[in-house]
């Protein structure tokens, strides 16, 4: 299996603190790897090692086939990096920022200007191109920052919490851009604290906590492992709630719950239970306005995984790690 980037057994200590305690990360070309974890879990440290900004104390980081420690120059030719804070120059204009990076990437001056112009348009910054960045809003800075990491058309791009502090509309903009990148075949490593973000963008997710990857899989893999699925039913006729309750309890073999007015739910062990519920409701002639088989939210998964005392975490480690 060829990976666009791969980290194996990364260890990094800062003084007596162990920031990374054997982290493995990998992504296939053209995919998005979501790295999910709370503050201080080791997300940024992992990214900085892959992006050649830090040397690991142990382990190996390979990007585009080149070792990040031994061939950092080759790695740097292939990557784009967007940090948690916008790493653009406040005193320079949008155009000057991008042209500077183009020049540092050895693009001929004309080409650097052209590329800057193209990116500013693509990121909806054409109007602000001639203004110093200090006059930009937070969302504009992030977009410029993202544009700056794309000047050299990198194969791999590291986005370290690209939407932290953005309002939902701006966040959607960034999501849209990330999807655009992968459509062009760019491999993305995305760190985030937002489960929703990982759910929406990532092909695969690695969950990091205390410097270790505690789970890895697709979003649905993770959801499947932690707590099973839930059948949710909202009967059209609220008067038949008791009948529905009886059906759910009979199929699932446990008592149904009432998560909200007019709704009943019950945890089930497999998809077969759902079919059985549908059949019985139909036999009884009970109409429904809502009928669903739900996976637990990533929030629930994450909570379960990062609280090691929970049963679910132990199960998850067995299956996924």
């Amino acid at each position, binding site marked *: 299996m060829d990976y*666009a980037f791969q980290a194996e057994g990364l260890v990094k200590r800062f003084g007596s603190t162990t920031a990374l305690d054997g982290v493995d990360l990998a992504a296939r070309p053209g995919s998005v790897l979501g790295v999910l974890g709370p503050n201080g879990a080791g997300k940024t440290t992992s990214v900085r090692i892959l*992006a050649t900004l830090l040397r690991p104390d142990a382990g190996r980081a390979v990007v585009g086939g080149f070792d990040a420690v031994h061939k950092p120059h080759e790695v*740097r030719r292939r990557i784009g990096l967007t940090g948690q804070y916008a790493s653009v*120059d406040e005193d320079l204009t949008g155009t000057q920022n991008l042209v500077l*990076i183009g020049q*540092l*990437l*050895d693009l001929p001056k004309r080409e650097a200007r052209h590329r800057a112009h193209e990116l500013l348009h693509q990121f909806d910054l054409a109007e602000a191109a001639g203004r110093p960045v200090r006059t930009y809003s937070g969302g504009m800075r992030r977009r410029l920052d993202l544009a*700056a990491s794309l000047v*050299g058309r990198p194969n791999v791009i590291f986005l370290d919490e690209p939407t932290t502090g953005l309002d939902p509309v701006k966040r959607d903009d960034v999501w849209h851009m990330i999807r655009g990148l992968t459509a062009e075949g760019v491999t993305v490593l995305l760190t985030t604290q937002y489960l929703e973000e990982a759910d929406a963008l990532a092909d695969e997710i690695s969950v990091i906590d205390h410097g270790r990857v505690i789970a890895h899989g697709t979003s649905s893999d993770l959801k499947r492992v932690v707590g099973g699925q839930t059948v949710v039913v909202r009967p059209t006729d609220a008067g038949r709630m008791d009948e529905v309750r009886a059906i759910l309890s009979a199929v699932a073999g446990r008592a149904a719950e009432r998560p909200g007015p007019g709704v009943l739910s019950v945890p089930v062990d497999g998809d077969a239970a759902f079919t059985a519920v549908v059949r019985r409701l139909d036999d009884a002639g009970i109409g429904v306005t809502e009928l669903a088989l739900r996976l637990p939210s990533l929030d629930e998964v994450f909570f379960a995984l990062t609280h090691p005392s929970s049963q679910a975490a132990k199960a998850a480690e067995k299956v996924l790690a």
Partner: protein
Amino acid sequence: MTTITVPVLAKGRPMGLVRHSLALARRSLIKTLRTPEQLLDVTLQPIIFIAIFVYLLGGAITGSRTTYLQFLLPALLVQTVMFASVATGASLNTDVKKGVFDRFRSLPISRAAPLIGSVVGDLVRFVVSIVVMLGFGAAIGFRIKTSPLEVLAACLLVMLFAFCLSWIWVLFGVLMREPGAVQGVAFMAMFPLTFGTNMLVPTDTLPGWLQAWVKINPVADVMAAARGLMNGGPVASPVLTTIAWSLGILAVFAPLAVAAYRRKA
């Protein structure tokens, strides 16, 4: 590896370090021009110093303000440009902590380029301070006793010395945690170096121990060279000493600064 396409970047154009450093020097220049208040220490401050020394002390020291101005200005020029060099280290310290330098570090450029860019970009500060001082000096009675060419040589020599000196502050800028700390340490070193000379008064009026210090203080040679080139007198020895010290400082501190910066990554 089959899916990895080669980036469009032109590979290994020659003179990469020079081009990258110049591009970054241009950045530093744009920043300076956009925040002109950064130039206060090389514009207003030298004028105030000239005024204080000439009008406050000049009469007492030489009996004639014009004579004193002629004696003081070349040496004060050295001091001003030296102090101006400290800002490079302090602003670099601020810069390194910002995300921009992370971006530079993630680019395929030499680690030396951002440092060289900062130092070269700040040369404009030296030019500004020299123009301001000579302009203000001329306005209140300073006259060139040699030739414009020799004055130009004096300016270039002073700039060379300050440029090389900058690398010490760059090293501090990379190593220290706060820009204020860089400035504090630098100024502590600068006072004995610049005031421990014959800048303000002739050496023979100083106590013996101070005379001994002036003799070994390289800044005294830089000042002697500047005076010689602007007011006349022997210049060969102080000019050569200045050049030797400059290159010596550069040879030691530039590699140390780059190494310290590289170690951070």
